């Protein structure tokens, strides 16, 4: 079934350009928002300085729970970043049309979260001053080296996938943003890469985007599979699992899908783009999310039910901690509130409308964050040999204010990157939307020329 959007109500090019460039100039609420994010980040920077000075002892991590909130956040960030690949690459390549106004938003989320995922790993390091050792003495056998390789590659390809389809939008910006500061215009001048609107150039950009979209699929699968292997390649109960790769990848799509729903709501309201991100898009995205959540639920059943049926001694300790023990409240809240109830609700069309989508999206993303916490911490509390002769704090874990501050800095940082990108460039490809409205390249070129004079 082919979808033709806005069929009945064609928009003129000048309206599209106007609608999509206006939010870049309109700044009410922008300064307080940036100040808010900066304040969170300032607190995080202060916490990190203390952590550098006093050591990782300011966290709640100790010799048994030696990975904590930072590593859990790292998986969460990588997971959220993965949605860029699913939407702009997989759905784009198989020709799904409704993603046009969403693809760039997904790509912005990918860039923001992937970049900060890399930084969180640095926050977790005992000796961040020795980070270059990874290049000086790197061992190709270590999954950490694989992870660093794929994360940087993913960030690079995501940036290219963001910038390439942006090129044909630059002429519009050059013409409409003449009242904006010089540095902005300089950025636009550089990023136009000499684009003149020739048919050949459009073809070239489409071809390059296609190549990049194909390239990003294996890289994105690798990035999250390798992240899951940081755990699955150890001999620990709860991590020693063969399905961790697909389990993480499907979980990542759920997280990212819900994040896109939240972003769609915020952008369509705040940027006044309801005509572009319509109920139709929320409905489609909601359906996609249900599908992703069902697949993830299937992996959850496999991951917990199979060992629970056998109840090997160590699995038993681990699983009872989750099902009925001290992690039970978090576990069931996450599984029910962050997965099962959202699936049931989103099966109904009413629940796929914008406002319910936002609420469900927030529940799913929050659940996804604590799911990563539940994957990381309980396992470390159940080593093969007993935890003994250590202070009581060694056999429990709840993150300290320092850990929360630094993690919140990462969240604020990722949101800040998304905010800045959304304020510098249109959040949807003007030219692709114009094409979908039946506007030809000649008309676009003519329009750009006109404005120039």
């Amino acid at each position, binding site marked *: 079934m082919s979808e033709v959007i806005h069929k009945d109500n064609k928009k003129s090019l000048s309206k599209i350009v106007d609608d999509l460039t206006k939010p870049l100039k309109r700044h009410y609420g922008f300064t307080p928002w940036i100040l808010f994010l900066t304040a969170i980040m300032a607190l995080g920077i202060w916490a990190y300085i203390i952590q550098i000075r006093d*050591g990782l002892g300011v966290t709640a991590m100790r010799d048994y729970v030696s990975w904590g909130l930072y590593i859990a956040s790292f998986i969460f960030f990588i997971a959220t970043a993965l949605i860029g690949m699913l939407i702009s690459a997989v759905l784009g390549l198989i020709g799904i049309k409704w993603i046009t106004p969403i693809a760039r938003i997904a790509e912005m989320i990918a860039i923001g979260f992937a970049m900060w995922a890399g930084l969180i790993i640095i926050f977790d390091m*005992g000796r961040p001053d020795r980070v270059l*050792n990874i290049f000086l003495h790197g061992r190709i056998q270590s999954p950490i080296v694989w992870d660093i390789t794929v994360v940087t590659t993913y960030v690079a390809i995501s940036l290219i996938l963001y910038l390439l389809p942006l090129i044909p939008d630059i002429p519009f910006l050059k013409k409409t943003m003449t009242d904006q500061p010089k540095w902005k215009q300089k950025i636009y001048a550089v990023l136009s890469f000499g684009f003149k609107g020739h048919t050949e150039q459009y073809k070239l950009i489409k071809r390059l985007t296609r190549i990049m979209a194909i390239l990003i699929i294996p890289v994105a699968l690798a990035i999250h599979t390798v992240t899951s292997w940081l755990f699955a390649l150890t001999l620990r109960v709860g991590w020693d699992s063969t399905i961790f790769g697909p389990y993480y990848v499907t979980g990542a799509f759920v997280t990212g899908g819900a994040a896109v729903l939240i972003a769609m709501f915020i952008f369509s309201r705040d940027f006044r783009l309801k005509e572009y991100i319509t109920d139709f898009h929320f409905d489609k995205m909601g359906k996609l999310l249900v599908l992703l959540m069902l697949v993830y639920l299937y992996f959850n059943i496999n991951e917990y039910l199979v060992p629970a049926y056998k109840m090997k001694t160590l699995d038993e300790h681990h699983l009872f901690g989750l099902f009925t023990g001290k992690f039970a409240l978090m576990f069931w809240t996450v599984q029910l509130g962050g997965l099962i109830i959202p699936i049931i609700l989103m099966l109904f069309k009413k629940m796929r409308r914008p406002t319910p989508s936002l609420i469900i999206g927030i529940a799913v993303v929050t659940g996804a964050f604590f799911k990563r916490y539940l994957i990381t911490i309980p396992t470390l509390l159940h080593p*093969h*040999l007993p935890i*003994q002769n*250590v202070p009581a704090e060694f056999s429990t874990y709840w993150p300290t204010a320092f850990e929360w501050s630094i993690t919140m800095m990462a969240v604020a940082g990722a949101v800040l990157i998304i905010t800045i990108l959304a304020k510098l460039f249109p959040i949807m490809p003007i030219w692709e939307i114009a094409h979908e409205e039946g506007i030809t390249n000649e008309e676009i070129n003519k329009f750009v020329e006109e404005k120039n004079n």
Partner: protein
Amino acid sequence: MKSKNTHAEKNNKKSTSRRNFLKKGLLAGAGTVLGAGVVGSFDAFAEGGDSIKVLGPDGKILTVDKSHLKEIGARTEAQMQTEGRTGIPGRRWIKVIDLGKCRNARMCVAACQHAHQLKPEQYHVNVLRMDREGETAPFFMPKPCQHCDDPPCTKVCPVDATFKRQDGLVLIDNERCIGCRFCIAACPYSARIFNWTEPRDAEKYKDVEYDVELNVPQKKGTVSKCLFSADLLREEKMPYCVTACPNGVYWFGDENENAVTNGTTKETVNFKKLLKDNAAYVLLPELGTKPRVYYLPEKNRLFPYKYNGSTELKKEHNS
């Protein structure tokens, strides 16, 4: 001529320029006959004529001019790094722990923590109270690093900071460790610890030159672990924990010689026979790590234990 290398002697840190010079010029080991071009810090350079008999590397007695011999002082950090990474040639260190003898005296723990600059809650070797399934009686089990022949920890290290040596030991280089703690996650024996804050007596050890075979001084933000007292092994002494035990729990030796010596009684026995006669086993063999630490079962234990029933360390200081 054996290199002596205790704490006190190493306390005088050499200047950087001298160390760099020594790195280039003096990587030769004990008793090496120096070539003509090598200039070093040996004393008897000017003296000629006197000859001396030394044991050559091939086991033959050599007669060499005294002026060609190098005086070996404290080893330099570079030397310690190079030798520390390769290990002691021809050796395959092995430890046997007799669980029937352990009475939780914890002298091994104390000696180890003293030698390796560890806090009371930091263990290279920990004595655990073990409870098996069902009606079996509890017993105490000293748990050092198992120095696995297929170590899961060295596999995952991104920077080769922790490594397996020829002589079977698994060491950690805290000058290189980036503090990612992947090795801690990977170790199924929970044998590794981390310096979450400044190590014990950090001020006192500030100028001590780093010895990778002792892992002292400990460094904030890096991993530490049991080293089988590689520094003592180089001096042909037994590890700190082994000699500290009052109950004869530990046997230590060289698999190649097929002999292990008891740290308390100094009795030396046939290693393989000891294992065979006492039904020795290794910890978690199903994980495929191939430990170099063997356990003799907890039979004929000496009851009752002096034991207060607590396995939790009371907080002695704020860390």
